[in-house]
């Protein structure tokens, strides 16, 4: 089976050290790491944003040689920012994710899937941040590409929509054979839905493996400075002050 993503020697000056990443089969892969750890840079390097180094093959195809329409069918990228430069409608924003000649029903299907039908004609600058997030997620999903690169898709969504989004992504992986690589800060959400977890730290992959094992291991405390106590993530306990025992 051709790997969904085969990236070798990826790098971005000053932000991402030389990194290899293989997603061999349809998987929901969550990228976690503290601010500035290289999650966005890794997504940028795969998507070809900001003059990255390295080679990328998606379904065996080098996206660098493709035109905009073919790239839309191969992969999509959702940035962490939720702003749009011009006040186009929600419907038109979703259409920007589709290649020319895409099925007429594709936009209506995405509007329906993300419960946006009633907002289709609204200007996206007049939507709430959460509604706008759903529109931009719909844009990223619209062309049903082989690889989804999503930067904090759950940010700004209410708890119900966070769960709905993750359920939908997991269903797309299972039913349509897509691979999803998404950056996320919610470790519990990542642990619940990810098939695979990648921990980023200092511009490199610090750990990569099965989510439950990684979340229970030593990487999370070492990288984030937090630990699970009493069923919740809490800052690491400060080391006991030896003077206090005297």
């Amino acid at each position: 089976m051709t790997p969904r993503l085969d990236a070798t020697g990826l790098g971005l000056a000053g932000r991402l050290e030389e990194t290899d990443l293989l997603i061999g089969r349809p998987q929901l892969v969550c990228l976690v790491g503290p601010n500035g750890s290289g999650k966005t840079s890794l997504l940028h390097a795969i998507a070809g944003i900001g003059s990255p180094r390295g080679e990328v093959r998606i379904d065996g195809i080098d996206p660098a040689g493709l035109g905009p329409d073919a790239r839309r069918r191969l992969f999509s990228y959702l940035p962490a920012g939720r702003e749009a430069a011009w006040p186009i409608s929600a419907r038109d924003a979703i259409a920007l994710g589709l290649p020319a000649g895409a099925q007429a029903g594709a936009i209506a299907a995405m509007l329906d899937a993300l419960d946006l039908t009633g907002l289709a004609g609204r200007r996206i600058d007049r939507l709430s941040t959460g509604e706008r997030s759903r529109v931009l997620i719909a844009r990223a999903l619209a062309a049903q590409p082989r690889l989804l690169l999503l930067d904090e898709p759950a940010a700004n969504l209410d708890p119900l929509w966070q769960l709905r989004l993750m359920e939908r992504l997991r269903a797309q992986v299972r039913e349509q054979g897509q691979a999803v690589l998404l950056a996320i800060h919610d470790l519990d959400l990542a642990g619940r839905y990810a098939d695979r977890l990648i921990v980023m730290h200092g511009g490199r992959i610090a750990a990569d493996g099965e989510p439950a094992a990684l979340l229970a291991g030593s990487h999370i405390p070492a990288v984030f400075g937090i630990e699970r106590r009493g069923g919740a993530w809490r800052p690491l306990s400060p080391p006991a002050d030896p003077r206090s025992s005297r």
Partner: protein
Amino acid sequence: MTRRAALLLWSLGAGLFLLSLLTPWAAIGELLARDRALGLAILTELRLPRALLALSYGAMLGGAGAAIQALFANPLASPDLTGTTSGAALGAVVTAYIFGFAAPVALSLGAVAGALGALFLLLALAGRRAETATLLLSGLAISALAGALTTLALALAPSPFAFYDAYDWLMGSLVDRSLAQAAFAALPAAAAILLLLRLSAPLDALTLGEDVAQSFGHDVARLRLEIVCLTAVGVGACVAICGAIGFVGLVAPIFARRLTGGHPGRALLPACLIGASLLLAADLAVRLAPLGRTLPIGVVTALLGAPFFLWLVAHMRWRLER
């Protein structure tokens, strides 16, 4: 843009072009009947260059305004407010009055160089996606600098009549240009517009940010360079022949985006048509106004455009504060 709106814009432009050539009907008809050769000469040597210049300069300003606004993601970016036209005027004045080259090709090259200098300076000062305040302040500074240097160049010019000579041209005028001079403006403008229209899709992709446009495979750095160069060539060539004409490049794209659902790239062609119609209409107004003398067209566009600009700033502020 709907087909009906496109057709309406084409018809409006074509109608104004014909009106520009043939009004007042009675006088032209009478002249053609009395002395056909003289009538035709007036049509081809006086009216045609003027109408062609209004058409091409207006379309160029509309297209350049739409492209610059899309690039900077800002509806207040336009060739005049970014200092491009002032830079072009400075380039042409230095070429003509300091270096002494008055041929249209030399003036055009000088104006293009000045426009390029202004746009690159703006990119350096305001950044790639400039906030309104930074963009306007940078544009204001560049315009002020270019204006001061233009005055200095005219003051230092060997000819004592330099100020008088340049006055009408600096105010923007389409009058008394030959067909050859019109071609020096219209041909580079047409080429620049055609090449700008190719950039419609990448400019639309920029709506969702530079990162998304790059993920679609658009080379944003190259896009920026292409827009700067094409705008400088087209606007520079027009300024060299007709002087600086303001506000058309600001107003036309704003109306054009209303026809394209806010899409900045798709607004390029309608902005060209609206720009051409605006300048043709302004020139007709200048020619037919019963004032006893012909006003420079730049004065008319500024008189109409400046209040629109003030309304736009107030409207944007109102929306921000809402």
